[in-house]
């Protein structure tokens, strides 16, 4: 009798080929260019889509299996955290403001990334790229959901977490992340991948999800560290997609090189500006600090990004245009951003504060070349004034950069005492920028950036008041009307941490948790 022999299982490489190749076909009822209208018009030339390989060789079946495992682990932690009121174990209630900013500014980006990848996953003609984009689209939706779920426990107890989708479309500083993503997903599919997968995910995302999440662990926030690392494990796949996409474009046709370099220049700078928020979260909003923004920048951008651009040099790719200015900014941007939010905190739905003495000492040690000379004197003065009951709030509106939409708070390269400002004229109108690089991005595609929805302009044009509000009425308070339109309650959601409801509640509840 014959012994039945088991067919040998396919190896990883064969399995990947079997599950990603031959899934597409040439259309016959309609011309290919009509079915896939976007994958050529950017000028990127692809000769052989089969050269696209996902280095992880992850197939859909393995994807579901491992994602399922990650979810089970994550939700077990979230459940335990919620069930045991573990939010009472975070360092202090100031920390929760970093989570508010995360939920307001980062989580909605996950949803936009989900839509963006679903779109490009539909529009590439190569199957390998389509499969990878579809997985990423599902990942991004997962991140939106897990972040919302993980942070919902805080929303039961603290202000400023209840209305983030509404705020994302309206509040001034949230137009920074929003416009970043709208810029990316209104471009073509190859530019989108260069923007999000390469420049943002590969070069910059470690700065958000690694030291910041490790910081969450350090501050006793088990729920956030777990969703952060769980999301970042997907990011490693996304980063791999990003570098694969870049290599693929560069290897397919020499004519692609200048186009890709232009996108790298643009999107590195766009991403860097966006990460200003993260710099501030790391240096000012985590009471216990793992590493400074400067150290994280050196580890993940300068060393790791440096290695990457050294590697890409063989294709004729150089480091992004704004690289040197970004490296210089590591000593400044977190302090400049925190000063700005502290000043405009009457209109921002999270709390700010001036650093305590030990925190000032930490900042001095981490920023020996900038903190004591440029920022400490200002912060000490503000703290002194606040102690005397003169906590000030700026009630006018800042000028915004037309490209990155960040208020014009950054200083000139080489002179950190002078605010940077640039101008361009287009169709008879004058436009303002924070830097050479934001101006360069505008000048390359002015017809796109003149359409920017700039919150400050919109407020001055009267588009950010509730229906029926009369700005000509006597005693009209524009800030109050804008906050009403935002649905931000000034004393609860915004303004200084000192004296806030969050501060009082946390102190009372923590007291109850340790005494009878």
């Amino acid at each position, binding site marked *: 009798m014959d012994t039945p022999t088991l067919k040998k299982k396919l190896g990883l*490489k064969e399995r990947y080929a079997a599950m990603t190749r031959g899934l597409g076909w040439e259309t016959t009822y309609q011309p290919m260019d009509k079915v896939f209208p976007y994958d050529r018009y950017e000028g990127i030339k692809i000769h052989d889509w089969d050269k696209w390989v996902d280095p992880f060789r*992850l197939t859909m079946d393995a994807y579901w299996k491992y994602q399922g495992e990650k979810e089970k682990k994550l939700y077990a932690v979230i459940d335990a955290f919620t069930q045991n009121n573990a939010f009472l174990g975070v360092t202090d209630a100031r920390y929760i403001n970093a989570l508010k900013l995360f939920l307001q500014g980062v989580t909605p980006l996950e949803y936009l990334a989900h839509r963006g990848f679903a779109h490009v996953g539909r529009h590439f003609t190569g199957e390998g790229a389509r499969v990878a984009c579809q997985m990423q689209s599902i990942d991004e939706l997962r991140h939106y959901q897990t972040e919302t779920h993980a942070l919902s426990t805080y929303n039961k107890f603290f202000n400023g977490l209840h209305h983030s989708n509404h705020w994302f479309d309206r509040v001034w500083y949230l137009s920074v992340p929003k416009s970043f993503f709208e810029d990316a997903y209104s471009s073509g599919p190859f530019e989108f991948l260069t923007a999000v997968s390469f420049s943002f995910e590969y070069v910059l995302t470690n700065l958000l999800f690694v030291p910041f999440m490790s910081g969450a662990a350090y501050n006793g926030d088990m729920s956030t560290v777990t969703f952060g690392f769980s999301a970042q494990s997907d990011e490693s796949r996304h980063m791999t997609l990003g570098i694969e996409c870049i290599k693929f474009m560069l290897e397919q046709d020499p004519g692609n090189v200048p186009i890709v370099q232009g996108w790298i220049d643009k999107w590195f700078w766009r991403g860097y500006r966006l990460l200003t928020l993260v710099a501030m979260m790391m240096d000012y909003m985590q009471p216990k600090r793992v590493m400074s923004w400067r150290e994280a920048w050196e580890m993940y951008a300068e060393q790791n990004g*440096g*290695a990457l651009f050294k590697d890409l040099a063989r294709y004729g790719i150089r480091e992004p245009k704004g690289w040197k200015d970004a490296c210089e900014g590591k000593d400044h941007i977190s302090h400049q951003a925190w000063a700005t939010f502290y000043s405009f905190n009457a209109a921002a739905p999270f709390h700010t504060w001036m650093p305590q003495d030990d925190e000032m000492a930490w900042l001095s040690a981490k920023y020996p070349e900038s903190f004591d000379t440029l920022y400490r004197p200002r912060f000490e003065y503000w703290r002194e004034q606040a102690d005397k009951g003169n906590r000030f709030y700026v009630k006018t509106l800042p000028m915004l950069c037309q490209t990155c939409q960040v208020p014009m708070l950054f200083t000139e390269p080489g002179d950190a005492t002078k605010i940077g400002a640039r101008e361009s004229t287009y169709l008879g109108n004058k436009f303002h920028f924070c830097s050479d690089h934001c101006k360069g991005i505008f000048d390359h595609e002015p017809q796109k950036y003149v359409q920017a929805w700039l919150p400050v302009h919109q407020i001055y044009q009267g588009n950010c008041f509730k229906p029926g509000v009369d700005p000509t009425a006597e005693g009209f308070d524009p800030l109050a009307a804008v906050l009403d339109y935002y649905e931000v309650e000034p004393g609860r959601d915004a303004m200084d941490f000192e004296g806030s409801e969050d501060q009082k509640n946390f102190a009372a509840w923590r007291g109850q948790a340790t005494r009878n």
Partner: protein
Amino acid sequence: MSNVFIAFQANEESRPIVEAILADNPDAVAVESPGMVKIDAPGQLTIRRQTIEELTGARFDLQQLHVTLITLSGHIDEDDDQFTLSWKH
């Protein structure tokens, strides 16, 4: 030669992976931060399935790395027996 790196959540599932990496890559250095461990290595780093299996006595599929992986850098070369990060081509 530039460094490559890989980072994992610090837990019981990643422990044998980290131990295997340190055993197989003498130049690799592990740096612990709250909640995570990051391993840097000059030029190249290899994870071998067999080493992990010898440590745990259980079968291991290298794609299980995804469950505790946080981040990495370098080009990936993966098959059923090994997972290598390097800046080589």
